[in-house]
């Protein structure tokens, strides 16, 4: 994946999130404060616009720019969380100009660790980590099994989707949803749902299917 592929990922992610913003907001209305779609649409739109203007000549620089935009423009907890994820992923890529399957795996892992550290959530707490964790694992299993980037990201997207489904019976222990306690059981976590979109955008782009 080169710099323009990463730009394409962000663009596709922004498009998917805008298209699904209503659903994300609906999920957040059930167990949070009903703004996740609005927040992320604003954040990714800002990221996409900032990228249009920014130099960002390496994959790492692209991800760091996106991270900064998400942190400063999103407005909800998901902003600093995803923003930190993108920044840590960007850092992990350093100055590499062509990202291979192993390098992308280490970037995804850095994103997971960054989010985990900032938010202090654990898998099972009904957060975005419950989609991202399985996605990173599936990516690595696929990569170790010899998959190319397209195959590994497809595996990641599918695992994120399964992870999202597994958030339904969970009780939220982090973020605003945790205030609602038992009332969060029976609903998908909005952040896990948006993680699915990000992983799906990545798989689409690496499969060469982005519009």
């Amino acid at each position, binding site marked *: 994946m080169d710099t323009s592929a990463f730009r394409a990922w962000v663009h596709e992610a922004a498009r998917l999130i805008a298209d699904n913003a209503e659903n994300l907001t609906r999920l957040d209305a059930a167990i949070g*404060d009903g*703004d996740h779609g609005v927040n992320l649409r604003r954040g990714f739109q800002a990221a996409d616009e900032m990228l249009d203007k920014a130099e960002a000549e390496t994959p790492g620089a692209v991800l760091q720019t996106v991270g900064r935009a998400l*942190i400063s423009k999103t*407005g*909800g*907890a998901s*902003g*600093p969380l995803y923003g930190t994820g993108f920044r840590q992923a960007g850092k992990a890529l350093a100055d590499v100009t062509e990202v291979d399957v192993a390098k992308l795996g280490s970037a995804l892992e850095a994103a997971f660790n960054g989010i985990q550290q900032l938010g202090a959530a654990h898998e099972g707490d009904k957060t975005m980590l419950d989609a991202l964790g399985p996605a990173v694992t599936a990516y690595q299993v696929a990569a170790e099994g010899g998959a190319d980037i397209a195959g590994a990201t497809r595996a990641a997207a599918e695992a994120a989707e399964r992870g999202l489904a597994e958030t339904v019976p969970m009780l939220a222990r982090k973020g*605003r949803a945790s205030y609602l306690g038992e009332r969060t059981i029976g609903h998908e976590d909005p952040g896990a749902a948006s993680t699915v979109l990000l992983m799906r955008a990545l798989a689409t782009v690496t499969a060469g299917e982005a519009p």
Partner: protein
Amino acid sequence: MTEGIGLVGIVLISHSSALAEGAAELVQQISGGATVVPAGGTEDGGLGTSTDKIEAAIEDADAGSGVVLIPDLGSAVLSARSVLADLAGETTARLVDAPFVEGAVAAAVAAGSGADLDAVIAAAEEARDAAKF
């Protein structure tokens, strides 16, 4: 900044600009000259937090003796931490786990009396245990 020189500054981070501004207004009354700066709402005035507002507020509140950040809800903590991670080393700002209004009052009184950063933080934290009646 002529007022508040040498005093610890206070930044009130809220998801609502009205909440941050109302709290700052209330607290400023008894802050004995210590600077209290609101950082509330998103950039477009909606409910949420803005790291740009937080960063600007830290700068405004800094009179050379450190700054305490008091967040309203958990997600304000994440925004504040992102800002602090960015400023790493270049700031004396510290995030405090204290009740928003009560911690702000206690911190402002301590700051106004010339207490140092650690003492202001301790005052804010102790507000948690103070009875109102």
